């Protein structure tokens, strides 16, 4: 491992050697002007090398000071860069998810025509930002090493590595100031794009499916709220909430076709249903939307809601294996052999006339859910129950205060994908950084030329 002090020592010794070789050439008894001129040149080079060697640490500190004066810092640059990379990755994943949907919807060719170039632009932009990250790693963590190697090359006798050395030093100085000041410069020209897409949301993908929800007896579980959960950062998070119509189909008012509800397309999704204030999970638990094609119907059923004849009447239990329900013309007959902790409960709205007869007297209570009130009758285990439920005069209910959570717009962030965003993104993360880096390269070239005396090692364009 080459140490900084070793490189510094090497540079100083090389500068000394240059000096004495210069003097030697002065002292040569050969009166050839071309040869003698090297004497003066070597002396001047060794002085400059010495001056650079002595002031290199000061120059490096000075660059930090200048960057700070320009309102920049490595922390600021890191924050700018990682925000950009995160945003671009999210957009790229979102674009890929959307492009997978285009084959199913009308106008697919037009959508693909937009998404294709957008995806290419995002790839190019990601390459640019990762290049900046690589340059930052070089300048920030190996800047002094690169500058010292440049110094060693600069101090070589007969200008062997002078131009390359000058370029190395100029590169470190120009880019360590320039990169730190870049976010401050950009913020003074344009504003950062505000995007609500996160990589975790984008990685879940986007799909549109029909969902049918039913009770254990196969009847539709209508007038209920469907909740969908997904794993986000190793934690279950609610990603969608839809109303389920009386016929058992989920409804998404923000979807282009309301019967098609948006949900994650990648990874497992956990479904729950809330009806009459009772929440249960839905089988299959979890289900995988990736196994279903676009708009295919996914049937989810609650194993705990045993009977749902409609009009918000339900019979549910937490021990479905011990309860058997038989439908009758006026209601239902059920047999239960509950163990300790088991419960069977009947819920119905106030509008219904419910009569429950059985070998055990039920406990009673009331419930309120989405602006409706109802009664509940429950049996708590351990018990051996035979009971019948008769229902009369039930009417459909009106629900108030229903809240939706559309996955595509509220979680996935589809509504953020607008022309404005693309415009801001291109200005903030593509055009300006590219122009800025091109300018920094020219500054490096100019500084290298200043240090190297003649021209830098950049090839001439014209």
């Amino acid at each position, binding site marked *: 491992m080459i140490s900084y002090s070793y490189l510094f020592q*090497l540079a100083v010794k090389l500068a000394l050697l240059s000096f004495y070789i210069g003097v*030697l050439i*002065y*002292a040569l008894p050969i009166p050839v002007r071309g040869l003698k001129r090297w004497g003066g040149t070597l002396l001047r080079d060794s002085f400059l090398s010495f001056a650079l060697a002595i002031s290199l640490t000061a120059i490096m500190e000075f660059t930090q000071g200048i960057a700070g004066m320009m309102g920049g810092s490595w922390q600021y640059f890191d924050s700018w860069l990682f925000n950009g990379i995160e945003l671009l990755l999210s957009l790229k994943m979102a674009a890929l998810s959307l492009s997978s949907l285009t084959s199913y919807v009308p106008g697919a060719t037009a959508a693909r025509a937009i998404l294709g170039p957008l995806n290419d632009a995002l790839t190019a932009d990601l390459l640019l930002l990762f290049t900046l990250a690589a340059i930052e790693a070089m300048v920030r963590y190996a800047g002094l090493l690169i500058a010292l190697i440049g110094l060693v090359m600069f101090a070589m006798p007969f200008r062997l590595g002078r131009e390359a050395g000058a370029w190395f030093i100029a590169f470190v100085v120009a880019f360590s100031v320039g990169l730190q000041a870049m976010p401050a410069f950009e913020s003074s020209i344009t504003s950062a794009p505000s995007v609500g897409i996160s990589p975790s949301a984008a990685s879940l993908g986007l799909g549109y499916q029909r969902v049918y929800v039913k009770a254990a007896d196969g009847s539709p579980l209508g007038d209920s709220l469907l909740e969908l959960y997904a794993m986000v950062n190793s934690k279950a998070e609610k990603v969608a909430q839809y109303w389920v119509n009386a016929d058992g189909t989920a409804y998404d008012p923000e979807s282009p076709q309301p019967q098609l509800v948006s949900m994650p397309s990648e990874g497992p999704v956990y479904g729950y249903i809330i009806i009459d204030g009772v929440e249960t999970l839905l089988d299959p638990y979890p289900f995988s939307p990736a196994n279903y094609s676009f708009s295919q119907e996914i049937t989810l059923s609650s194993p705990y809601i045993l009977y749902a004849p409609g009009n918000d009447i339900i019979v549910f239990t937490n021990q479905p294996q011990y309860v058997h329900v038989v439908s009758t013309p006026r209601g239902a007959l059920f047999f239960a052999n509950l163990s300790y902790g088991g419960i069977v409960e009947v819920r119905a709205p106030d509008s219904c006339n419910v009569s429950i007869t059985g070998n055990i007297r039920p406990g009673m209570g009331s419930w309120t859910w989405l602006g409706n009130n109802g009664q509940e009758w429950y049996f708590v285990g351990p018990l051996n129950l035979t009971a019948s439920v008769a229902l009369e005069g039930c009417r459909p209910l009106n629900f108030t205060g229903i809240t939706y959570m559309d996955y595509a717009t509220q979680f996935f962030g589809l509504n953020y994908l607008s022309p404005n965003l693309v415009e801001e993104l291109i200005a903030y993360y593509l055009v300006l950084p590219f122009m800025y880096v091109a300018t920094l390269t020219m500054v490096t070239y100019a500084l290298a030329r200043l240090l190297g005396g003649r021209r830098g090692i950049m090839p001439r364009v014209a």
Partner: protein
Amino acid sequence: MTDVVSFIQQLTQEVTLAAWALFLLTWTIGWTLRGAPIPLSRLKRAGSGLVEDSIWAALWLALGSTVFTFITYVVKAVVGSP
């Protein structure tokens, strides 16, 4: 690793010695040419040039050696190692 540095240091010492020797040689040749009984002005001018160059070389040698020795002395005093 350190060999490169010591090699350059040794080389520098040899170059310094050679420079001193060349200074003497050039100075002598210069005066020889100037004092030679040959009436060629170009030859005399070459002699003067050699004497002048040798004097400059001696000046830089003396100056450089003094300054660099002083710097080495200061570095030794401050850091504690050469």
